[in-house]
């Protein structure tokens, strides 16, 4: 049993280990170490990073889970820490009785952010929504970024018909409205995390691909690339060892922004009913359910407000971080 539990938790642990390893390695690289030093001087950025780390920590808590017995539902660390017994119905934040019912019931526990229609703790739902946002943002990026990098690099570097083909591809993809493409894909593959990520992935690589292609075009004719060719360096190595590292700063900034827009997209999809299923904890679902809560008397505002706040803080922090990265990664170093 213990062994199975460990096995089930390997993916999140590997992801976290990889993340820390990459950060740690880059700290030893002189150029990145300088960027970190400049980043540390930016107080706003430190705040944004703190928020993101807090979110990440909570996501991690929700990602490690164990089964008590073979037949039991797996429970995450987050469930153990924050899950509370259901109440009968809605209750306002910090209230002691339910509201919106003919008969008021006494609450079994304190609910800092209140409870929702089925009496579930709103704080718990907000926290559960984080993992969904990060999973969608992360997995969609994991699909979009490699595609964008690969196509952008080869299009910019080889030019000619390779460029024509890639340009054609993203012009076609770009001319289909994103939302239609996503809805069609989700309808085809069925609702669920992976089909949503796939849909978001194939609709969001275009912008990054354009950026990478343009930057590669610029670097292709730089003298350092010519000098590498003169040394006999292969095309594959020129792309991965010479051009790609020079693009990384702008790619990292673009991916940070992409991640935040994808997290936002999940909410929109849930709102129009093609997001995660209703059983999944997601901010989009919470905002969706608030549609009729807002028309009731008294207004049940807390679902909407807290889900939106959690989302807003995340997107804002990511955007601040992207901005700070732009300043930290000295543009002079990039052009030289």
């Amino acid at each position: 049993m213990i062994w199975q539990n460990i096995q089930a938790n390997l993916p999140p642990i590997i992801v976290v280990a990889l993340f820390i390893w990459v950060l740690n390695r880059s700290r030893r690289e002189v150029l990145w170490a300088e960027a970190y030093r400049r980043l540390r001087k930016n107080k706003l950025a430190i705040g944004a990073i703190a928020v993101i780390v807090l979110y990440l920590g909570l996501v991690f808590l929700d990602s490690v889970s164990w089964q008590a017995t073979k037949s039991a539902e797996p429970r995450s660390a987050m469930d153990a820490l924050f899950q509370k017994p259901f109440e009968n119905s809605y209750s306002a934040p910090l209230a002691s009785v339910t509201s919106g019912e003919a008969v008021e019931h006494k609450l079994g526990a304190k609910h800092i952010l209140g409870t929702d229609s089925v009496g579930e703790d709103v704080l718990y739902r907000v926290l559960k929504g984080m993992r969904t946002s990060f999973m969608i943002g992360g997995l969609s990026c994991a699909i979009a970024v490699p595609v964008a990098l690969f196509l952008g690099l080869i299009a910019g570097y080889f030019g000619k018909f390779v460029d024509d083909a890639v340009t054609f591809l993203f012009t076609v993809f770009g001319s289909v409205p994103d939302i239609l493409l996503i809805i069609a894909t989700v309808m085809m593959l069925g609702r669920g995390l992976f089909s949503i990520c796939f849909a978001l992935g194939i609709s969001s690589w275009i912008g990054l691909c354009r950026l990478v292609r343009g930057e590669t075009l610029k670097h292709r004719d730089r003298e350092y690339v010519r000098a590498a060719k003169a040394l006999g360096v292969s095309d594959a190595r020129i792309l991965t060892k010479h051009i790609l590292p020079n693009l990384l700063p702008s790619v990292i900034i673009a991916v940070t922004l992409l991640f935040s827009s994808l997290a936002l997209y999940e909410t929109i999809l849930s709102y129009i009913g093609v997001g995660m299923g209703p059983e999944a904890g997601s901010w989009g679902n919470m905002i969706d359910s608030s549609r009729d809560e807002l028309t009731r008397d008294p207004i049940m505002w807390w679902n909407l407000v807290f889900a939106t706040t959690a989302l807003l803080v995340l997107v804002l922090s990511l955007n601040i971080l992207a901005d700070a990265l732009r300043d930290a990664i000295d543009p002079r170093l990039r052009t030289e």
Partner: protein
Amino acid sequence: MTEAPILQISHLHKVFGRRAGLLRKSDEKVAVGDVTFDVRNGQTVALVGESGSGKSTVGLMALGLLAPTSGEVHFEGESVVKLNGAQRLALRRKIQVVFQDPYGSLNGRMTVREALTEGMIIHKLGANAAERETRAEALLADVGMEAEVLNRYPHEFSGGQRQRVAIARALSVEPKFIVLDEPTSALDVSVQSQVLNLLRRLQRDRGLSYLFITHNLAVVEYMADFVCVMSQGEIVERGTIEDIFDTPKEAYTQRLLSSIPSTDPDAHRLHV
């Protein structure tokens, strides 16, 4: 001289742009038209011209980095234009290049060590990392830099130092021939003299041949054995330093020479 030239360029043409197509007018532009010259072993041949004269394009074709539209480039008697992969790689070891811009010619994300050992790895020079390190240190010493700069990045160096690193990188594969594309044009005068001295010493010590591409006629007068003056893609005049600078025959060469400001304030030749 009976010795065959190390580099032979014959009837080289390069046309940029595309032919007229179904929905397109032709935007062809002749960059190089019928260029022929030789470089002999140990010689410095200067290719002189103003911007747009096609001199750098000739340099790229001599390197085999740009395919000519027609014409031939022979290096040590073998055609550079039609090569298979292995032959091309072998050629890369023999011909190297140093570019003008010391800021653009080094990869900003690579340390000096990576820049100097990359070519060695590709051409299997030096059995292991330690041996390559020793070679890299020797190269740096040869261009007048300390071994401790191996771990540094280009942005930490001045223009002159970068150009030294770029020269060391070119030497890292032990070439016989180097194309020097405006190697001192971006440098200050006092640094230029250091780099020119270095290039001359390396030529002497290693028996290198140079194709020196420049617009700076004073440098040509000092460095070159033979001069080709290019204008609008063609060589308009060629000869020794004495031929070109003392008795120029073509109107263009005369105009070019009379345009150079002299450092003699009494000369005042500039009345065009």
